[in-house]
């Protein structure tokens, strides 16, 4: 397993694509966060705003690049036929899958931490009058920051699992982005508040991002940690499906 992880790390490290994707992820996350903080008209808790959540808006966009990275790690090998070589070198298929998942999680955790810290610092600078207090760090702020990093890792694992199941990068990205972005849009047309709440509770994006809230927790459709657990369940299901699929089909 250690050798497999090392091999996957070498593959990821020596290709330019992932590096650019991660750098791009950090850049767009911080940029969108700063932009959202600078244009928002409702910052203070008085009007229902949440400075921490606002400063982490960029995660909405950054997760898309995280998803491509995770999809390419497995979809790229299927696309180019390299996966056969990988399996020849490491015949235990689930070990290969686990090694890839571990490497992706690691790099996303590191890059995600940079992006989240950058976003919070940008919010600190952009929001007027020190509305975002970063030091001393409060429990809710820490939860939002750490939770966002965990969320990005879970999105990566979800995308990785989906791509391993469908074995095609474009289809994988389409499915993952559809899962993430469609439910919040469709929830808007659901007239019944109960049904809308259930949709927001089970969707990977709207549930998982509940972890970013620091105020008005009782208004949320789902609690911060419970929401993150929903995203984790999605990721676990995708990984499980991938583990089953990689074992039963020839490549």
């Amino acid at each position, binding site marked *: 397993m250690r050798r497999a992880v090392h091999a996957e790390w070498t593959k990821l490290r020596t290709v330019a694509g992932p590096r650019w994707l991660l750098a791009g992820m950090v850049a767009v996350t911080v940029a969108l966060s700063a932009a959202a903080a600078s244009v*928002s008209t409702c910052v203070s808790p008085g009007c229902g705003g949440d400075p921490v959540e606002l400063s982490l808006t960029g995660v909405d*966009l950054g997760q898309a690049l995280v998803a491509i990275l995770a*999809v390419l790690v497995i979809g790229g090998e299927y696309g180019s036929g390299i996966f056969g070589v990988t399996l020849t070198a490491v015949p235990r298929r689930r070990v290969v899958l686990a090694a890839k998942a571990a490497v992706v999680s690691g790099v996303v955790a590191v890059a995600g931490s940079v992006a989240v810290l950058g976003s919070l610092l940008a919010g600190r600078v952009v929001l007027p009058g020190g509305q975002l207090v970063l030091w001393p760090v409060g429990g809710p702020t820490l939860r939002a920051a750490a939770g966002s990093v965990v969320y990005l890792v879970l999105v990566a694992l979800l995308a990785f699992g989906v791509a391993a199941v469908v074995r095609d990068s*474009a289809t994988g990205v389409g499915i993952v982005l559809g899962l993430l972005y469609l439910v919040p849009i469709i929830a808007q047309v*659901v007239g019944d508040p109960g049904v809308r709440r259930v949709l927001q509770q089970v969707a990977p994006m709207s549930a998982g991002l509940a972890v970013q809230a620091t105020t008005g927790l009782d208004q949320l459709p789902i609690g911060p940690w419970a929401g993150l657990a929903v995203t984790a369940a999605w990721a676990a299901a995708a990984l499980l499906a991938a583990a089953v699929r990689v074992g039963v089909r020839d490549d």
Partner: protein
Amino acid sequence: MTTVLTSGRRAGFVSLLHAEWTKFRTVAGWGLGMAVGSLMIVLVGVLAGVSSDQQGAPPVPVGPGGAPVADSFYFAHRPLTADGGITVSVTALESSVPAGPGDLRPGQVAWAKAGLIIKESTRPGSPYAAIMVTGGHGVRMQSGFVDDIAGPAGTEPVHWLRLLRSGDTVTGYSSADGTQWTEVGTVRVRGLGPRPRGGPFVASPPSVDGMGTRSSVSTAVFGDLRVEGSWADDAWTGEQVGPESPTFAGYPPGTSGSSTASGGELTITGAGDIAPAVRETLATGGTVKDILTGTFAALVVMVVVGTLYITTEYRKNLIRVTLAVTPGRGRVLVAKAIVVGSCAFVAGLAGALAAVPLGERLAEVNGVYVFPVSSATGLRVALGTAALLAAAAVLALSVGAILRRGAGAVTAVLLVIVLPYLLIANPFMPAGVAGWLARVTPAAAFAVHQTLEPYEQVASVYTPYNGYFPLPAWAGLAVLAGYAAVSLAVAVVLLRRREA
């Protein structure tokens, strides 16, 4: 010679189209994708139709034109049995808006109305003509809920109003001093009936506050009330019109409507509006835009299929074979664009044509009012949805040809279309930023789903989120088509230059 060459090229292009169509048709996943996209539009339309149950809710008032209206105001009235007129002086009009719970503050409500009205009955939605002074827009003569005539512009404040009815014709006059009168407008009101009510009224529409509205209340003092002609009864009956109407936001907490007479003056306090209903006035209502939200799901599918249509050729190295048998490289991409665009168009059109009537019918069964659309508008929306999906598929094909990588192309196209829409839909996004996002990004194309009309005489939140786009439908579509056309041109140039 030239003719032969041209017809040869044309025949070549037709067979190229045929070849590309065969490729598209014979990959099971792509045809299935189109069908799934179509089905997603219908399924979300059904979801929108069944997800809300408003049975037993009071009926939405509908104006003479068939459109929903707000028709709630405080009315002091007497029956008018034949022709007649009424004159009054409005000596004060003051409005209040709550600044917080239980904290009513004086404020300006630009479309607060105080004046005279002749109306078929006190039934909400019945025909009327009215002349009024407003909080910030001077004297107006309004009728039929949508017709609005501005009174004389001048520095002298108008205090006197007069309304004359002769058969179907109602004429409004205004005056600064009660002696020199100016005609504001003459309107023909069909269906005033044998016994219309006439008298002074006060309405006070909700005031816009950020991304929402809050109900307001206004009080006006009427003096010198005089009638001429055939009026029945002797006393004025004070009554709130349409108190239970879904288009009535109600009075601010702690206030209520009233009319009190003292010393020859009549003081009326009222809330509500006499105007066409907009999204914000009828928040419980559904729109065709809501029913067609599944377009997003279809969009994801079309973008994936459009991308795969070219990137699969690169992945399998089939592109070399394709280019070897086709002398003009650019023509391959154009043929692919025509094939995938047409398929997306047909799938989108079928989905929209099925989803809208189905969604409307289900909503109706569940007692949900859907803003009505004319059949021409309905057709425009269905064609627009189809064209939106076609343009998105061509954009995806072009970006796929430029990047030659499926994952990157799908992400890029979805992000440039869906992310702006999500940002627009964020209620905290300032209207200016949301407006620009809806103008310059490919998400502008969602203007094809607009069926609601903004009105000058109704202050409201006219944002894309509420279904009001800054660009007309064709212009929004042109923005997306422009992105697709530019991308296709870049892709053709790159395909000619690059090694396959």
